[in-house]
């Protein structure tokens, strides 16, 4: 992708969109990002369907993975949001977590595209969460929900100021939620690309370059492992922050 015949590192070229699936995809602007979303969705379905097909008492590897994912998200929901409400939001959080997790993890494979490395995608996801949280809050508490913006036990004179600050702080969730995921994924892939280019460029130097090129290869190997960690952690953080926001919406303060 980068440094082909040139001496510059094109670290951001990997994030460029182009249409997938030939002329049909091109006519409806179906990009490789969309293709990866479809693959991620099918991957989640495949994990659950194939994993749960044996219905064994002692689960195999795939079934154990499916069950563990279910249990983890279920306990995250019930512990963070609260028993009854947590179960209500479990499908949403589960879908969100696994969609992001598969998007992040598939991106680590070569030739695959990471759709979570685009701010537009993560912003859409966090807007979805934001709108849901707001609607849930309004539905649960009616107009009383607006008292969320007035912290308890503050002097009356400070109330307008605090409401403005709380309002901005509430809106900033959209940005912080989306930027956290996007920045982590993009930074990781830029690092991979940069060190990958180092391997090619230093290897081209001849005998002198072999040692540093091998060093870069080692760094890249470590980065792949690190990338796996970040992919899982960021999906988890996105899910648990969604749970915390839902908890705030359901319980107020």
């Amino acid at each position: 992708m980068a440094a082909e015949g040139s001496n510059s590192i094109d670290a951001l070229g990997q994030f460029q969109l182009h249409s997938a699936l030939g002329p049909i995809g091109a006519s409806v602007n179906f990009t490789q990002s969309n293709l990866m979303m479809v693959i991620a969705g099918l991957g989640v379905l495949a994990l659950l369907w194939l994993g749960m097909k044996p219905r064994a008492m002692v689960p195999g590897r795939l079934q154990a993975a499916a069950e563990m994912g279910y249990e983890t998200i279920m306990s995250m929901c019930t512990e963070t949001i609260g028993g009854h409400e947590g179960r209500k939001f479990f499908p949403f959080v589960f879908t969100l977590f696994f969609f992001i997790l598969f998007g992040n993890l598939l991106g680590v494979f070569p030739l695959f595209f990471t759709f979570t490395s685009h701010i537009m995608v993560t912003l859409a996801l966090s807007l979805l969460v934001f709108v849901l949280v707001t609607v849930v809050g309004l539905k649960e508490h009616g107009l009383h929900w607006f008292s969320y913006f007035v912290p308890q036990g503050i002097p009356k004179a400070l109330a307008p100021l605090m409401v403005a600050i709380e309002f901005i702080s509430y809106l900033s969730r959209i940005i912080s939620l989306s930027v956290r995921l996007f920045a982590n994924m993009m930074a990781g892939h830029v690092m991979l690309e940069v060190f990958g280019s180092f391997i090619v460029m230093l290897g081209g130097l001849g005998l002198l370059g072999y040692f540093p090129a091998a060093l870069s290869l080692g760094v890249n190997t470590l980065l792949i492992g690190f990338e796996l960690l970040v992919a899982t952690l960021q999906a988890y953080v996105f899910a648990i922050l969604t749970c915390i926001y839902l908890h705030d919406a359901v319980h107020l303060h």
Partner: protein
Amino acid sequence: MSQETGGPDTPSPNLSFEDRLKAARSKQGLDAPPKPSLGDTDSLNQGGLGGSPWGIGARVGVELVSALVVAVAIGYGLDRLFHTTPILTAVFVPLGGAAGVANLWRLFAPKS
């Protein structure tokens, strides 16, 4: 206490397998009894980010900047709307900074 094997006296089917296993183990004296409400405050405390300094640092940066971005966007938008160009932006920038600090306080405040 009779040593039953799960079945009829399990507390409720709503608990996850881990919870039921933990409850059963502590009942048999295999584990120490669970500390009350540890998981709840823990997961709420730092957004499940653990204690990695890099994670905390990134978190702090994102929270501060995102509040400021929202505040500037609001101020600039209102300025464009009311043709009061620098004033509302100037009003909202300190508010945004304060909102960022409020975000951080909510994250790292000692739980009472």
